[in-house]
């Protein structure tokens, strides 16, 4: 371990330090002051970490090949930190009103982000697995952080059991890979696989195990069963974070493993992934249609979005545009989905429940700014221009067609129509119904409104001027193509 190694992982070190400082600060300050200082501390610390991402170290391998720093790493690091900042900024009012321990909450988000970042910089199965666990274990805690709520407990238990199960599957797949290739670093694995041919039993077993394990993490149908309950039961700001951070990280892992290590097997997995993508988006959307609770609806819809992202992964043979599509969509999805969940924080409801459709009636009259932001996020999730969600759909359809998967492109288009139906139903409730007699009380946190305002503005501005992000995504996708 040299100085260069340490410098290479300085963003991770900073985020870890932020988490520790927050924990100490939580112990030092009294509750009222902590409620003010902790979010500020978290956001400020993460901004420093974000700046350090751009403090470029040479793109190379560090820690004797266990860590890779390249454009891909930087892109995902930035996305993870941005999402963590957003998640921290929307939370204070909710945490205060539900008496959720704030110190733990912010620290957990930071720890989980460190895990996610570790996935992005991994160039070895071991690093990747450590990153994955560092990311998920805090999230189990986060899901159950409202200890006295039984739905939160259910969510945490379910998430934990299935998460542990999928980690085991994944690890078992890694073991098979090691057995076949006698290596854990992606480059050697890819080289050995290419050399010894791919059509043999053990390789297929390893591939299947890895695909299923990662499928669980990313909530791909049919491995998605844990998602709705976990998302629904977790405290809403935690859900907002869970639905984007770990998902983005899962895709970072999928790209690193499938494209990096298992790239030679592309012919095998891309056909499977194309079918899974179609199943995932259709399944997620159809079940979302039937939901009357917006939190559950958004949970299912996030499954559908997984399908769109997966479609771009399946189109990997189209070259860098496929990787760029995944990265761009992950970024866009993170912004709009976290925003959409965060809009539910305006409602002061018992437990961890999300607002039902009826409770949204007339929301536009009661909280015009929140409703406008919610509307923008939903329109973006639908994929209607001029929002970033539309550009994301455009860049996903492109490699999918390029890879010769015209049927999948049509499935994406039709799914977007299905999704429009339930997304716009929410807009209908907010704007076209009058508020009823006993509507839930609204909480209006200034931090919440400001961060939602910024995010919804970004959704539109980046929808009109997406060039810089897309170019960055293209650059970041380059290292994946060997």
């Amino acid at each position, binding site marked *: 371990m040299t100085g260069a190694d340490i410098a290479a992982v300085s963003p991770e070190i900073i985020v870890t330090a932020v988490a520790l400082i927050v924990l100490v600060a939580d112990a030092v300050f009294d509750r009222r002051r902590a409620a003010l200082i902790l979010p500020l501390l978290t956001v400020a610390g993460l901004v420093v970490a974000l700046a350090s991402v751009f403090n470029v170290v040479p793109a190379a391998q560090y820690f004797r090949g266990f860590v890779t720093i390249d454009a891909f790493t930087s892109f995902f690091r930035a996305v993870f930190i941005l999402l963590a900042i957003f998640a921290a900024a929307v939370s204070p009012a909710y945490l205060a009103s539900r008496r959720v321990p704030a110190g733990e909450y912010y620290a957990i988000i930071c720890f989980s982000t460190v895990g996610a970042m570790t996935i992005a910089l991994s160039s070895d199965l071991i690093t990747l697995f450590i990153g994955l666990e560092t990311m998920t274990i805090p999230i189990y805690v986060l899901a159950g952080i409202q200890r006295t709520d039984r739905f939160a407990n259910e969510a945490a238990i379910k998430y934990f059991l299935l998460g542990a199960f999928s980690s085991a599957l994944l690890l078992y797949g890694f073991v098979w890979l090691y057995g076949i290739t006698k290596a854990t670093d992606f480059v050697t694995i890819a080289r050995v696989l290419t050399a010894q041919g791919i059509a043999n039993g053990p390789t297929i077993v390893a591939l299947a195990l890895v695909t299923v394990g990662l499928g669980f993490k990313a909530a791909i149908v049919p491995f998605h069963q844990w998602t709705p309950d976990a998302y629904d039961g977790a405290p809403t700001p935690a859900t907002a974070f869970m639905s984007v951070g770990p998902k983005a990280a899962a895709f970072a892992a999928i790209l690193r493993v499938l494209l990096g290590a298992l790239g030679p097997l592309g012919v095998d997995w891309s056909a499977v992934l194309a079918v899974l993508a179609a199943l995932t988006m259709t399944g997620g959307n159809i079940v979302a249609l039937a939901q009357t609770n917006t939190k559950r609806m958004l949970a299912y819809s996030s499954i559908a979005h997984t399908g769109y992202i997966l479609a771009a992964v399946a189109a990997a043979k189209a070259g860098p545009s496929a990787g760029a599509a995944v990265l761009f969509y992950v970024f866009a999805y993170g912004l709009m989905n976290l925003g959409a969940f965060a809009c539910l924080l305006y409602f002061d409801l018992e437990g961890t429940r999300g607002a039902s459709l009826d409770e949204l009636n007339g929301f536009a009259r009661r909280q015009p700014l929140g409703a406008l932001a919610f509307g923008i996020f939903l329109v973006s999730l639908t994929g209607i*221009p001029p929002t970033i969600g539309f550009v994301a*759909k455009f860049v996903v359809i492109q490699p999918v067609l390029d890879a010769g998967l015209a049927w999948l492109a*049509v499935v994406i288009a039709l799914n977007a129509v299905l999704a429009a139906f339930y997304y716009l139903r929410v807009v209908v409730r907010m704007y076209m119904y009058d508020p009823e007699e006993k509507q839930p009380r609204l909480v209006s946190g200034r931090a919440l409104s400001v961060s939602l305002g910024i995010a919804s503005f970004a959704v539109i501005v980046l929808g009109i001027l997406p060039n810089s992000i897309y170019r960055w995504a293209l650059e970041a996708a380059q290292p994946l193509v060997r």
Partner: protein
Amino acid sequence: MTNVLSLLVVIPLAGLIPLFLFRRDERAAKQVAITTTFVELVVSLWMVKQFVVGEPGFQLVEKLEWLPSLGISYLVGVDGISVLLVPMTTLLTFIAVLYSSGGAIKTRIVEYMTAFLLLEVGMVGVFIALDLFLFYIFFELMLVPMYLIIGIWGGPRRIYATLKFVIFTLAGSLLMLVGIVAVYLQSADASGSRTLSLPDLIELRGRFPADFQFWVFLAFALAFAIKMPMVPFHTWLPDAHVEAPTAGSIVLAGVLLKAGGYGFLRFGLPLFPIGVQAWLPVLIVLSVIAILYGAIVSAVQKDLKKLVAYSSVAHMGFVTLGIFVLNLQGGVGAVLQMLNHGFVTGALFLFVGIQYEKTHRRMIADLGGLANMWPLFTTFFGVFVLASLGLPGLNGFIGEFLVLLGAFKFGGVPLGGLFWGPLAAIGVILAAVYLLWMFQRVMYGPVREAYRALPDLSRLEIACALPLLLLTVILGVVPQPFIAYIEPSLDRVIRLATDPSFVVVAFK
């Protein structure tokens, strides 16, 4: 000044700023919206003045790098097909806003005007965009404001109607998005650079193989056919029109439907000549069905607004028929028919709205004898009804006549133009039947006591109707100057569509 087209996009957006500043003051908001749409109208006329008649290519072109990493640019321009549709749009929007500010809209004025200004950006943008990506954005930009206009300020079944409208339109346009991406990928040259700029694509269209054109044209055609709407995709239209507020109906019928016909002419025909040929029989037959079906269904409507809505289906049938007979007469007729339908049906919806505001009845059976009380109303309404049924001397005649002429000359479908042409002509007769019958039941007969005290047209209502009346007469009596605008560009489109090897250099 060469940036007049961008100015047309910017003005309504700029209008949002004072609208936001005066968000507490409804009167000011109305004035801001009226002023903005009026300025937009004037600028669009100024744009027409700068247009050089007789030049077939795109004019007033502006190009700006926008998404260089994707080869997408901000590219706008007009030719003879779009140059008249833009002032039609701005005029109808101005009238819609003017009429709405008279008291027809009572709640949430500021939001309403915001929606209208955003809608205008989309509508104008659709007619000037020359990059498929940009076109798609404007095409969709029309969707959300109209969704809100119907859904918030519409009638009792507005939510059903507006969701149906959005879902139908979105289904079509998302498939078109797949088509656009397919075109984008297919446009790649040896060096891998791709484009979505229409003038470039027209030059490159030799790279589109036959089966590619077959499928991609279908994707585009579905989007446009739903927007038009063509039978059997028309079912959203009666619901949307009936539930929309009057101004929404005016703009929906007057402008939004034109985006479909325009899309066929602008993108479908020039880019996919082989695809067009393949789908031609289907489209012609569907057009004739639309003409006859629309007319027959109109005849049995009990609701005045629904009758006008279904008559739109028939009129749009003439537009598609004129487009797909692929000759100059038919094409010019189709473009004229789009303009005429914009003015006349816009006016008809205006008058149905005015009538409803006064009597609060829309069922034809509940009305009657209105002519005795409202001489002015009757005169205006009568002229528009006659124009709609194609009376010579008014504008409706010219368009339908040219379309039928083109249809008779056309031989590219089974049974030939001499079968389908006369069949479509029956539609003209049916139009006379249902429109005159409606006029008779609504305007004549005994005066009902309940309506006796109701006033005739107000000054505001006359101001809204007068420009439309003038245009109806002028277009009917001297269509030639308008045809002179349309003809050269249309000739080029027809040659592109009928001869896959025809190549033009798009810019001067």
